[in-house]
């Protein structure tokens, strides 16, 4: 499209667009460093980086404006990652630290996963030789996006990566849970398989602990392997304070105000499962080293008996009301 006509301004235009959005977004939402500072796992060096990660964007745009006006293309290749992050549909990705990419140890094994690995890596790090023809450049471009995704999956479960994704989580960059009773809780990207080209990315809600399909088709087609199966759970292991209190709220279907008999039965079953697991957890936490199974089963039985005792009277009154419907 435009890119074909003006190859030199390709990155520049896209980058400015992407930058403006993100900038206004962080301006409006405010950037939260408090929790990062408060958390002992986050090293001070990172916080410094975190501050930098906003200011270079500002600098970048100034530089690019200059590039644009002066017509110089000496600098624009530095910013492949910025271009990538600013492109529509890539909103879920965070910026992988340059240091992380440059450390070959972190990329172990990726050379066999990605075609034209070294050119792709050169493109990501903005060292690619400009003499490639257009067709080849497209192939390398595609490989670079794939490689960036795979590096991204590894990066976001490191300390730096988790904190970067945390900022995006707080800005609701991954959308909100569509479940009504989750009250628009922010989501996190997750994979169902770590192997590339198997499953597209899903969104995890830590309130209902379930996974959802992204709303937009652009996001729904992103490879899940670029985020990995572990990421959201790793984030909550590191920042357990982010786990919201769990609610027992549940949607109750009704016909002319009456509960449905079958649904009521299922709900009682679910309540039983929940209470059993709660009992198991409480017993397990008290006597964890000695093995949680023995106390758990006995307390679960108690719970069941208790349930039965509590459940029976209400059941009778309800089944009477349901006679009209079933």
């Amino acid at each position, binding site marked *: 499209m435009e890119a074909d006509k003006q190859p030199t301004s390709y990155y520049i235009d896209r980058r400015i667009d992407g930058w403006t959005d993100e900038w206004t977004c962080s301006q409006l939402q405010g950037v939260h460093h408090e929790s990062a500072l408060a958390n002992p796992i986050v090293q001070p060096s990172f916080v410094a980086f975190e501050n930098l990660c906003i200011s270079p964007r500002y600098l970048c745009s100034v530089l690019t404006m200059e590039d644009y006006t002066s017509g110089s293309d000496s600098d624009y290749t530095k910013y492949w990652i910025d271009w990538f992050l600013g492109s529509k549909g890539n909103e879920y990705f965070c910026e992988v630290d340059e240091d992380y990419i440059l450390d070959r140890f972190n990329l172990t094994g990726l050379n066999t996963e990605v075609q034209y690995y070294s050119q792709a890596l050169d493109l990501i790090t903005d060292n690619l030789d400009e003499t490639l023809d257009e067709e080849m450049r497209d192939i390398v471009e595609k490989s670079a996006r794939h490689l960036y995704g795979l590096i991204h999956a590894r990066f976001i479960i490191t300390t730096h990566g988790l904190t970067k994704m945390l900022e995006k989580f707080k800005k609701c960059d991954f959308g909100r849970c569509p479940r009504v009773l989750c009250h628009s809780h922010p989501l996190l990207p997750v994979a169902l398989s770590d192997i590339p080209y198997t499953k597209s990315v899903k969104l995890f809600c830590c309130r209902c602990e*379930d996974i959802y399909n992204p709303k*937009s088709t652009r996001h729904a087609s992103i490879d899940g392997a670029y985020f990995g199966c572990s990421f959201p759970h790793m984030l909550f292991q590191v920042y357990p304070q982010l786990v919201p209190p769990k609610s027992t709220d*549940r949607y109750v*279907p009704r*016909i002319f105000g009456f509960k449905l008999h079958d649904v009521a039965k299922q709900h009682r079953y679910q309540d039983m499962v929940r209470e059993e697991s709660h009992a198991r*957890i409480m017993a397990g936490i008290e006597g964890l080293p000695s093995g949680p199974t023995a106390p758990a089963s006995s307390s679960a039985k108690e719970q069941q008996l208790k349930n039965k005792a509590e459940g029976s009277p209400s059941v009778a009154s309800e089944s009477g009301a349901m006679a009209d419907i079933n």
Partner: protein
Amino acid sequence: MSAHDHQQQQLKQQQQQMRVNDIHDEEEEEEEEEEEEENEQLQGEYAGEDYYGSDVSNDSGTESMPWIAWFCSLGGHQYFAEVADDFVEDDFNLTGLNSIVPFYKEALEMILDLEPEEDSTKVPDVSIVEASAEQLYGLIHQRFIVTRQGLQQMADKYQAGHFGSCPRTYCQSTNVVPCGRYDLPGVETVKLYCPNCQDIYSPPSSRFHNLDGAYFGTTFAHMLFHIYPELVPNIPNKIYAPAIYGFKISEYSRCGPRMQWLRNKQDPNLLDVTGKLIKDDENAK
């Protein structure tokens, strides 16, 4: 006749203008919607900015279009069934609505495409009657879609996928139906009920975020699957199990799973009234 036509046209244009404004606001609010809007606009019929003005261009065709058909054809009204004229004309079906809907008489005339009476010209602004007509239609709709005829229409729309699909991954794009959590208007917007996970979701597109849930009501969704049980999909029950590096997170962990009960679905035929598995009882004996 010509005066009536003129008024009708004026009304339509006003409403269309309102709708267009709404859409522009929404686009600003929610970027993600842009894509959907773009896609739909590209699909021929709705070209460019005149998304809702599409029927202005072929006025000759829509001039004779009944109000109800026109209303249901508007963008963002895909969830509505076309209420049968004789249902609206039967006063019994409208019992109590005159006390809820302002300008009830004028609104009803508009819905039924009746010539307004002489003294009804006192109405300050046509857009007020438009709003009343929308609310009145919505509340009649709530009652219509739980009748045999209404259910049949909605079942057809359900099977045609007019209401979209469940966002929950393990529901494998089960079709959803619109529902409300309240039967009174003005409380909450429309939600979508999934018969597989038996849960409710917000519509993905913000154009439905102004649609009153009362226009679908609390009963309809469940009545539909009660009358047409074959519409309930048979999808294997799957619960998401969080894992790190392939190892399931223990429930003893501080951030271990706590909500798995919510998606634990059991065939009601295998449960006794207290919710216990019938098999369990037999084993215990």
